[in-house]
């Protein structure tokens, strides 16, 4: 068997890709909300976490993994929609700091309530596929059936979101409501409904990410499950450009691979430092993000 496939570099790339897909999805969910409502959602990790706890509560009633996934998605839709309607909508048109403060507060409340109801101990959820790595010629290979499922699901979600935005009537209305709400209203688009849908969609992407993380045999669901991931997702969204879903995904995936190489060749503790340095340098050189065209302004 080709030793290349089990080499250190290929192993790092594949492991990094697995994390990168997760970062890309978190970044994508942040970008979806930013583009549709101009809000930087600091509760973007906590909302899906809460929905996942609700959905997986069904496990104790002996429902299958897939039924629980469906329940999580439904809970995500409800939490995303209700958050936009009840918490965010009254803040439109107010100073930009208001939604940031409210969403940071919401993050704290959700994590505290989740800990009070379900405790802070990791709750291992049964993955649908084995997490044991395949072997090639007696050597461990970087992929397992679960990792393939994780990467495939991530790619599928990203492609589905891209197709929705690019090729469907609903996507056109979602994009129009985000960039030109008044003009959209004049054309008959129900902008309020589109904004709610944007939050629902974003939370569902977050829920799928959280399910993948929680289903991993080596981690498990906790109230803080998304905190660390959120930091990398945020960095990916900011570096890629908060206006660019493609940028968020590409930078998210690359960040995952870079992190893996830093972990392997430097030190695990250096990962966040290097990621933050990347953010600072990127903001200094291109504040609007690598994949977003700089805004031109007549003076």
């Amino acid at each position, binding site marked *: 068997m080709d030793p290349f496939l089990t080499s250190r570099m290929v192993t790092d790339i594949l492991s990094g890709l697995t994390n990168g897909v997760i970062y890309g999805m978190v970044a994508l969910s942040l970008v979806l909300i930013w583009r549709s409502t101009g809000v930087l959602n600091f509760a973007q990790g906590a909302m899906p976490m809460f929905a996942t706890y609700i959905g997986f509560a069904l496990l104790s009633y002996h429902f299958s993994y897939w039924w629980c996934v469906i329940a999580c998605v439904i809970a995500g839709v409800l939490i995303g929609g209700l958050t936009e309607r009840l918490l965010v909508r009254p803040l439109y048109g107010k100073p930009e700091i208001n939604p940031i403060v409210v969403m940071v507060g919401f993050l704290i409340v959700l994590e505290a309530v989740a800990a009070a109801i379900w405790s802070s101990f990791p709750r291992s959820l049964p993955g649908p596929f084995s997490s044991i790595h395949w072997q090639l010629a007696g050597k461990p290979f970087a992929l397992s059936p679960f990792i393939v499922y994780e990467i495939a699901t991530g790619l599928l979600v990203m492609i589905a979101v891209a197709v929705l935005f690019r090729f469907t009537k609903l996507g*056109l209305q979602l*994009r*129009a409501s985000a960039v*030109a709400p008044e*003009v959209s*209203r*004049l*054309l008959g*688009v129900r*902008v309020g409904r589109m904004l709610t849908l944007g939050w629902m969609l974003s939370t569902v992407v977050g829920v799928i990410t959280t399910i993948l993380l929680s289903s991993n045999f080596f981690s498990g669901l906790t109230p803080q499950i998304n905190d660390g991931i959120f930091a990398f997702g945020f960095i990916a969204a900011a570096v890629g450009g908060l206006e660019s879903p493609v940028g968020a995904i590409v930078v998210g995936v690359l960040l995952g691979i870079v992190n893996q190489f830093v972990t392997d060749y430097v030190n695990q503790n250096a990962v966040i430092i290097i990621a933050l340095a990347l953010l600072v340098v990127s903001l200094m050189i291109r504040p609007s993000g690598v994949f977003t065209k700089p805004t031109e302004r007549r003076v």
Partner: protein
Amino acid sequence: MITIDDLTVTFGAVQALRGVAFVAETGKITAVLGANGAGKTTLLRTISGLKEPKSGTIRMGERHLVGMRTEDIARLGIGHVPEGRGVIGEFTVEENLRLGAMMAKVNLQQGLDEQYEQFPVLGERRKQHAAKLSGGERQMLAMARALIAKPSVLLLDEPSLGLAPLVTAQLMHTIRSLCETSDLTVILVEQNASSALRIAHHAIVLHVGKVVANDTASVVAADGNLRQYYLGLVE
């Protein structure tokens, strides 16, 4: 037909429109003229539901529009081309048109073909981002986007703003021929009074929110006092 009666609109303590009343008849162009700050744009925004009036009524046929949401008013068949054109720069020409056609029960391809025939330059630039179009092309796109939905009423806010005289003349000709061929009711807000009066059937003149003239376009055009004091047209 749009019937406006005793319409008053305020911005805090400022009265933008004061007891405005007129009728825009079906198949006719009604020009709304006046200087900057006369309340012309506010009038169109109030008809479209973007601004809530303090008092008064707006009717389309027998249907009252005050209190309805903007998107529901648009779905009744009122197209509004806002000041500054309002094309979505991030979208291609075709995406702008697809968005315009979305709420109307029209065949998309047929609608696109009709607009490309009416405005050939848009057909040539269908894949181009609207931000890259010239001022005249953007105005055509804004018009085409409103027309593709087959509205029964079209509100046009300063369509000639920033356009070369030749382009303005072409645009006014297009508006007039659309009105004659499709029974379209047009309310045309213009600062360029002479261009608007040339194609309008009826005209009202607003001065600091009040209607100071309401007559046929030819009568308004012939009134020396109106021309001099309210329209800035000097012989």
